């Protein structure tokens, strides 16, 4: 039972953290609940489809279909996160100002919201398909341990939802004027980690094998498969044994997003009152 709980929890940590962060990032955006839930539901449906066609996907394109699929959806998520950060750099200050003055901001952030819904959908899809496969494996094995495993899975799932709530509640405690600066950094690091993970799959597919040697091994310090390792993997892109290429892409993505966001930010010399007028 406990084993199942841990496996399920470990698999959904990433999706759980991402949903929590997105909820915090979209403080004050109208209809965000609708966007977030459509991301989750879309991801779940996709996960079932991917799990069902796992074999077909795996053997597609001379055996590298699954890798290319994973790399593709990760790349999409990186683009969406980058785009969101640039969008926030432009509009974040209005949103924060509005949050401060009336306690909530009514901002039509639907463009940015659709990007974030995709990020959520993709995270749920990736992790969810593994959960579905794992559960299927247990259900197919024998009926005797079924109840136990089901209970374990529910515990794992509940812990995941709890993690989402904790992430959200922790982030929204940050004062509004600093909230978007903090979440902007979190999102940039998260995107860089996803880009590095995308490189992992491209290397596994044999498409991108350059600089494949391991740059360091910190498995003694923090294992990728531990709970904390998984959390750090999502938030910072931590990997115990990254390749040189993963490292380069990580740094490149992070720098590009931070620079682009800075460039997109409106000039800060304007007196504060002007923002109220502009909004």
């Amino acid at each position, binding site marked *: 039972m406990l084993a199942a709980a841990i*496996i399920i929890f470990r698999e959904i940590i990433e999706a759980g953290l991402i949903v929590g962060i997105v909820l915090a990032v979209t403080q004050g955006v109208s209809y965000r609940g609708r966007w977030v839930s459509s991301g989750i539901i879309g991801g779940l449906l996709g996960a079932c489809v991917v799990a069902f066609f*796992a074999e077909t996907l*795996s053997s597609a394109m001379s*055996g590298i279909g699954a890798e290319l699929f994973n790399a593709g959806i990760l790349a999409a998520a990186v683009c969406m996160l980058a785009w969101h950060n640039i969008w926030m750099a432009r509009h974040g200050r209005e949103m924060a100002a509005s949050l401060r003055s009336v306690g909530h901001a009514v901002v039509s952030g639907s463009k940015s919201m659709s990007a974030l819904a995709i990020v959520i959908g993709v995270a749920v899809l990736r992790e969810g398909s593994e959960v579905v496969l794992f559960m*299927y494996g247990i259900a197919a094995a024998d009926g005797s341990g079924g109840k136990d495993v089901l209970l374990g899975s529910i515990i794992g799932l509940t812990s995941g939802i709890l993690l989402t709530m904790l992430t959200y509640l922790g982030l929204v405690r940050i004062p509004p004027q600093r909230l978007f600066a903090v979440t902007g950094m979190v999102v940039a690091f998260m995107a860089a980690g996803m880009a590095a993970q995308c490189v992992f799959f491209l290397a*596994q*597919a044999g*498409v991108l094998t350059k600089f494949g040697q391991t740059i360091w091994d910190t*498995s003694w310090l923090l294992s990728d498969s531990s709970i904390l390792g998984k959390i750090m993997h999502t938030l910072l892109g931590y990997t115990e*044994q990254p390749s040189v290429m993963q490292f380069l892409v990580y740094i490149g993505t992070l720098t590009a997003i931070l620079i682009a966001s800075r460039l997109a930010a409106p000039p800060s010399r304007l007196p504060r009152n002007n923002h109220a007028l502009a909004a």
Partner: protein
Amino acid sequence: MKLKTVRVMVAAVALFAMNSFSSAEGELKLQLTIKDHKFEPAELKIPANKAVILTVKNLDATPEEFESKSLKIEKVIAGGSEATLNIRPLGIGTYKFVGEFNEKTAQGQIVVE
């Protein structure tokens, strides 16, 4: 027009992939099976600095995820199917791998000499 671009990109990636497979002459081919959530053989010995193509046959009815941090591989293998894994040229050492869905029993390692 967008679709065309996508098609060209897919074709390019596919060509690229085929190319890297056709250069497989110098590579070593090995095989292992998964049965009753165990790897057989549980230990493989390979020479250093040589690329290996490892075929993993899952004889169980249930899916398994072949995972190894040190080999940089994580691959779901459906029940009753097989997967081909590219293992990059490795330095001397021991590289552990597990079946993530049955981590207690599904353990193995590649010893590079």
